């Protein structure tokens, strides 16, 4: 960005990097050059090979071929320790912090064995003050918000004085306001000469923040560009190819009777790191899609457990389904009342990785004709699984394919298909397109709209504001275990929802704190 940067040796230069796994070529002759002080975006959909490439740079994965040059010299990064010695730091998408330790203790764990804790605390304060990453070193991590936890990770990375900082999807857990704050910090870090590799699939952010971009698709580099001079459409063409994705806008369906209703649902914490739910009230009518926005960890999981029937501590009339009090009923009794629920975790809750798609049908299909006289009717179950694969265009070798052999998007299509094929009248879905590629996401959104047209009451819980604005008729926001009043999507603005995500719907206009609620 400066004239010296252009003439200097590149900080990092990758050429001809290849890495293949038994079933997929993750990186195919990748070239990438990052100048000192440059904020360089690596843009691509899930599965494009971004993560593999970053792991190669960070020494966590060994490339099959290709060279890595660091400040002009060819290097072999054998492991993350090597990378840190060179001056490469990485902040992962999923934080690696211990909840029960303090900020300083967590940071000390990543440093040399003998650190002076008082000095370290001072360093943390100073680094924080320099970059606008204020942190209280002696606070326990479980009391921090998600945004604050990310600061801990960034400060930890900065304390090693890196020359290259890798950030993997850093904004996926932040409110719009917190994102702006992060960008200020990143620009300051870059201005001091540290290069930043910024991995994301969010086009607007990249256009706003980054100096240059490398776009990847299916393991290959499809383009280098200056994102500030591109439009979102041109970037997205590089990212997903020429396939045009249309969003058929459906005619509005008349809204019917209340199908799912929460009345003052309150639940105490089930464990120390859970979020208590406070007086949540919500009505969902037939033929409408209601969205709940919010940063993760603000009670979404707890709310879902109460809605699914996994958590039965609620008073029976706090939750009513099709007019019946169901707070005390388990998942199967609620399925009998035509409720379908797609959980947030696909592998690990919605499907058993080690079992076939056929077997996974039985997680929510537990009645005739799937089960007869206590025995599994395999013929029918296989048939039903095949139907889902065909109708929802699930890429799988067949109904006998193990769930874990499917990509995230295809498994999500299968699970959503399984829940839709049951003919639900109430459909609850969490993070419907999390980690799903654009094509599959459009398909999933289309299916959700079809449900609405068919008169189903739909609840979408998501962290993606774009998705909620696109799908929903009304929006709520969850923060600190409380639910905001609802607002019609046409009347809502992103700023307003962003503010509500901090729990500030009671004091309208009061914007002195932009911090996210404690997770």
């Amino acid at each position, binding site marked *: 960005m400066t004239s010296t940067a252009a003439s200097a040796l590149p900080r990092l230069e990758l050429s001809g990097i290849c890495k293949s*796994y*038994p*079933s997929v070529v993750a990186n195919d002759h990748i070239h990438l050059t990052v100048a000192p002080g440059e904020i360089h975006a690596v843009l691509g959909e899930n599965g494009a090979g971004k993560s593999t490439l970053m792991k190669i740079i960070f020494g966590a994965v060994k490339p099959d071929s290709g060279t890595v040059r660091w400040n002009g010299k060819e290097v072999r990064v054998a492991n993350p320790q090597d990378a840190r010695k060179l001056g490469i730091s990485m902040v992962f998408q999923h934080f690696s912090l211990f909840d029960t330790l303090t900020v300083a203790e967590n940071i000390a764990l990543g440093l040399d064995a003998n650190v002076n804790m008082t000095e370290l605390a001072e360093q943390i304060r100073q680094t924080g003050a320099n970059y606008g990453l204020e942190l209280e070193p002696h606070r326990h991590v479980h009391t921090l918000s998600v945004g604050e936890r990310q600061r801990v990770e960034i400060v930890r990375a900065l304390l090693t004085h890196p020359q290259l900082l890798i950030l993997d999807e850093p904004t996926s857990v932040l409110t719009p306001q917190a994102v702006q704050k992060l960008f200020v910090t990143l620009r300051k870090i870059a201005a001091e000469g540290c290069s930043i590799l910024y991995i994301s699939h969010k086009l607007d952010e990249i256009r706003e923040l980054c100096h240059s971009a490398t776009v990847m698709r299916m393991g290959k580099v499809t383009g280098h560009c200056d994102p500030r001079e591109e439009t979102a459409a041109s970037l997205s063409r590089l990212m997903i190819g020429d396939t045009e994705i249309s969003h058929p806008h459906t005619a509005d369906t008349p809204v019917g009777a209340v199908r799912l209703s929460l009345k003052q649902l309150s639940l105490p914490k089930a464990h120390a790191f859970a979020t208590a739910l406070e007086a949540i009230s919500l009505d969902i009518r037939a033929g409408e899609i209601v969205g709940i926005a919010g940063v993760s960890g603000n009670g979404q999981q707890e709310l879902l457990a109460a809605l*699914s*029937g*996994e958590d039965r501590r609620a008073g029976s009339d706090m939750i009513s389904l099709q007019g019946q009090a169901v707070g005390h009923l*388990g*998942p*199967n009794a609620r*399925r009998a009342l035509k409720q379908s*629920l797609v*959980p947030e*975790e696909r592998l*690990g*809750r*919605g*499907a*058993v*990785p*080690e*079992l076939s798609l056929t*077997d996974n049908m*039985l*997680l*929510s299909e*537990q009645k005739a004709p799937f*089960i007869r006289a*206590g*025995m*599994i009717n*395999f013929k029918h179950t296989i048939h039903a699984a095949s139907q889902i694969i065909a109708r929802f265009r699930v890429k799988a070798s067949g109904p006998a394919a*193990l769930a*874990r*052999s499917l990509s995230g998007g295809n498994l999500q299509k299968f699970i959503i298909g399984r829940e839709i094929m049951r003919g639900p009248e109430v459909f609850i879905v969490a993070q419907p397109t999390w980690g799903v590629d654009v094509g599959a996401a459009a398909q999933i959104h289309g299916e959700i709209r079809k449900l609405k047209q068919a008169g189903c009451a739909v609840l979408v819980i998501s962290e993606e504001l774009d998705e909620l604005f696109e799908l929903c008729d009304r929006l709520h926001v969850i923060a600190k275990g409380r639910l905001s009043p609802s607002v019609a999507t046409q009347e809502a603005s992103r700023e307003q929802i962003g503010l509500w995500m901090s729990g500030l719907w009671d004091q309208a206009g009061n914007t002195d704190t932009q911090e996210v609620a404690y997770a």
Partner: protein
Amino acid sequence: MLKLELRAGSSRAMAYLSPLLALCLTIFFGALLFLALGKNPLTGLQVFLIEPIRNTAAISELLLKTTPLVLCALGLSVCYRANVWNIGAEGQLIAGGLAAGSTIIFFDHPDPTLSGSMVLLLACLAGVIGGALWAAITALLRDRFHANEILVSLMLTYIAQLLLMYAVNGPLKDPNGMNFPQSKVFSSEYLLPHLMHGSRLHIGFIVMLCATVLMALFIYRSFAGFRLTVGGLAPLEARYAGFSSRRALWTSLLISGGFAGIAGAFEVAGPIGQVLPSISPGYGFAAIIVAFIGRLNPIGTIFGGLILSLFYLGGEMVQSRLGLPSAITGLFQGMLLFLLLACDTLINYRLRWKKS
């Protein structure tokens, strides 16, 4: 340098080959063991592994010992699939044997009220109930107080053993038995009918084969079996599906206890024919190895049962022929389990030769 490398997915072939590989390695190290004990390793192996199956009479003994091993292992397979770590099959076997023996002794008097087969049926039922009740203690403590089922089921084994000691020294002691701690010998009509003349192999063997088929149906075809498997494999998915983990705990422990209990009943009413202070040479513990060798698959447990039964007979053989201690059986059992666990690494990893 030989290196372990993560496979792309776990290898199905290796899952089945691993027990065979472990068996081959056990035989190899067994040969070394005989060598270290100053015996010709080939002779040692011949006496240990071949002698016990030299003729039909010997093979019928092999099948006789396979019966309790497989019955216990069938129940344990259900538990382990459900992620319930019952290692107290030995205690459940003893409890079942004690219940069955007491039933026979209750009816076995000079003017019988019930026919022999009726009493045997009741004795087997008592065995199932006795074993299941003993396992129910573990289930109850785990369910109510979150007690660790591994420790509880193991410690209950010793309690069952002491209960048996009390019974043969007290209420069940033979009044005409010169004060030996044992019950009277059951009248012949209260013993399980033999399958062949001149062999101790009894009808329990057939029951065991039928139980294996039923268990395979239960695990692979029934919805109850599916619920247990999902509960063990993936607790969160089971919660989502609405499968109760408490129900899985109770079901698997009661089934397991029942199977171990009937194994005990068959021992008491079969080859032993009375209640003794010891009614099992550790079948319940060996069955843990049987279950794992059999890959928690009911049909597989038959193969595992045959191997472990062979080890029992081989141990007796080397004792009488070569003058070695019968602890050899335990050593072979231990080696087999140890090597099996080691070989199981190869299901998810493969060996690669790497030039360093």
